[in-house]
């Protein structure tokens, strides 16, 4: 009797073992196809992007084709010791933080409007919000210079209003924040709008029917459910503004430069690639960390917002 049971088990094992390799092979084939289709893009990234970053990374540690000494941390030590760089980093963080707040305050109502069911001007507003992304950075910036620069109408009004000898907004931190807010607003709006798209209108009605005032509905239901989109937008805008170059370089002017501009001038103007490359690597690490946080927040949001309605 035990023998019969044993042989039965063996038979079962044999069939399952026989079934496994074919399933395994099918999975391998599927993987090869997927990988084959991804390969060109991966190759491009591996050579152009990772290759470039690898050279920068090696250079930051004193390594590479025209290295004079062995591996060293001197570049990083210099970055952390320099008072000038600390000031630049602080300024970058301050400009980015203000930009994030400006984008949030301006962007939330816009996202709320374009996701409301009876928005009559939705496509127009979406186009208007996205339009800064369709103009080349240089063209856009020269427009701003004409608008904000000395002798411009805006400069005259500012002078008139504040009664100071202000030369307009050009070459001020405020100018950089306005410029950054202009180009980064679409990212905030789209991030919040995406999280509102699966916001169930009946949740707001349910809250009101339970006695929640319009402001209680907003703070206790609407905002918590939008929080993932808001956080995602905050992280994206923040990481794009700490790495931004063109806007800050052209609107900020000398003495008001940010990290990206500092990298540029160290490497290309002052021919001091050591500090520049170390700064570039640190900036990369920061923005990658922020992006990963944004992706993680997005995943959590999806998991929370998908209600299970079936039985």
């Amino acid at each position: 009797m035990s023998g019969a049971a044993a042989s039965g088990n063996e038979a079962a094992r044999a069939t399952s073992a026989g079934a496994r390799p074919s399933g395994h092979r099918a999975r391998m084939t599927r993987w090869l196809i997927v990988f084959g289709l991804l390969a060109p893009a991966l190759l491009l990234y591996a050579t152009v992007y990772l290759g470039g970053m690898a050279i920068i990374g090696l250079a930051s540690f004193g390594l590479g084709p025209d290295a004079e000494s062995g591996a060293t941390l001197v570049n990083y030590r210099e970055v952390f010791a320099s008072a000038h760089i600390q000031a630049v980093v602080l300024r970058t963080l301050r400009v980015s933080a203000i930009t994030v707040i400006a984008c949030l305050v301006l962007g939330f109502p816009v996202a709320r409007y374009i996701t409301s069911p009876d928005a009559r001007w939705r496509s127009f507003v979406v186009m208007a919000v996205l339009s800064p992304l369709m103009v080349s950075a240089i063209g856009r910036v020269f427009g701003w210079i004409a608008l904000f620069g000395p002798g411009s109408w805006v400069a005259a009004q500012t002078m008139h209003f504040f009664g100071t000898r202000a030369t307009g907004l050009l070459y001020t931190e405020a100018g950089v924040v306005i410029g950054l807010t202009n180009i980064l607003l679409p990212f905030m709006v789209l991030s919040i709008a995406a999280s509102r798209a699966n916001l169930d209108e009946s949740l707001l009605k349910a809250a009101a029917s339970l006695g929640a005032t319009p402001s209680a509905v907003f703070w206790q239901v609407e905002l918590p459910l939008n929080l993932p989109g808001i956080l995602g937008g905050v992280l994206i805008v923040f990481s794009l503004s700490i790495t931004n170059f063109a806007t800050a370089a052209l609107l900020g002017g000398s003495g008001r430069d940010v990290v990206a501009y500092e990298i540029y001038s160290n490497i290309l103007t002052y021919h001091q690639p050591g500090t520049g490359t170390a700064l570039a690597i640190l900036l990369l690490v920061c923005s990658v960390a922020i992006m990963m946080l944004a992706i993680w927040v997005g995943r959590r949001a999806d998991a929370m917002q998908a209600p299970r309605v079936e039985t």
Partner: protein
Amino acid sequence: MYGVTETADGSPPHLELRGVCKTLGGRTVLDHVDLEVAKGDLLGLLGPSGSGKTTMLNIIGGFLSPDSGTVRIAGQDIVGLQPHRRDIGITFQGYALFPHLSVFDNVAFGLKQRGAPKPDIKSRVTEMLALLGLSGYETRLPRALSGGEQQRVALARALVVRPRLMLLDEPLANLDAALRHRVRFEIREVLRRTQVTSIFVTHDQDEAFALCDRVAVLNQGRIQQIGTPADLILEPANAFVAGFIGSPNMLTGRTMSYDEDSQRATVDINGFTHAVNCKTRVAPGTPLTIFVRPEEVTISPATSGGGPFQVKDWVYLGSGREMWVDGPAPLRVRLPNDAQGYERGERVTLSWRPERAHAFPADAESRATADHDTAQVRR
């Protein structure tokens, strides 16, 4: 006492709609709706999709305002009152549980808005969860609940604040058939125990009949009839109600004679003559639309020479057998499972009790309505 209409003793209705009209996007969605619900009553609001049920719910709940007419609760006109001041509990079709809050916090939401003291909230929420069999679910999030459990949380959340009125929007629509029967029973029990005045919105007549003391039939923005399930089945007020309730056969015929005393008409349906019930006085020759439900038709073997009808096909439907019969008009006939069988192609005669076949004059307007509505019913 629960469930008995008390307007008879002179007390005002708890909920009262008078001449409510609403036009949305150029379409008249509600057309002079009058409705009264007595305190503690459970009224079904039954109608095909697009009949105006949801608009009515939104007007009572305060999410839409009527173009004209009044809505009163306990004598107070609530038109213009914001939703959060109305004290009306609503359960939504998709349950609308707050996904970021636990079961406890969902149920406690309304009490917190009212500034109830913490220990009070705890005891009332706990009590309500117990009533709905949800004890032990306090810390779970809505997404970790089954559809039936979510429905019960939604009910608990709306009932715990002891609203003046409950609106239940298609509460069973998202449940599978087996669960639907159980939840239907649970809802009836809870509403009975809490004695809250309720309106139950549905497109499903079986649900409306199973749950409600009285049912209002709505079509094209008008209340067609309000009555008990028996009233609607036995005494339909018009062609729409007769055609909508119980998926009847619809036949067209011509009046041969009319007897005013018994309110009976004899009709000629393409050569087949039979007596039918007709409340309106009709002259001979008047075209009539006749509704007769499949279970009211009796079938018998043809006498010698062959009957006017012929059995085309039949199917088992669980509760009985449905025969498809053709002849002067195509008809569906419902027989008990153990009834005498008929062969396909066999010739038969058909009959019914005259009071169970409801005829209405088929003037151009009502015929158009009837055609449109039966088309909707079939869909």
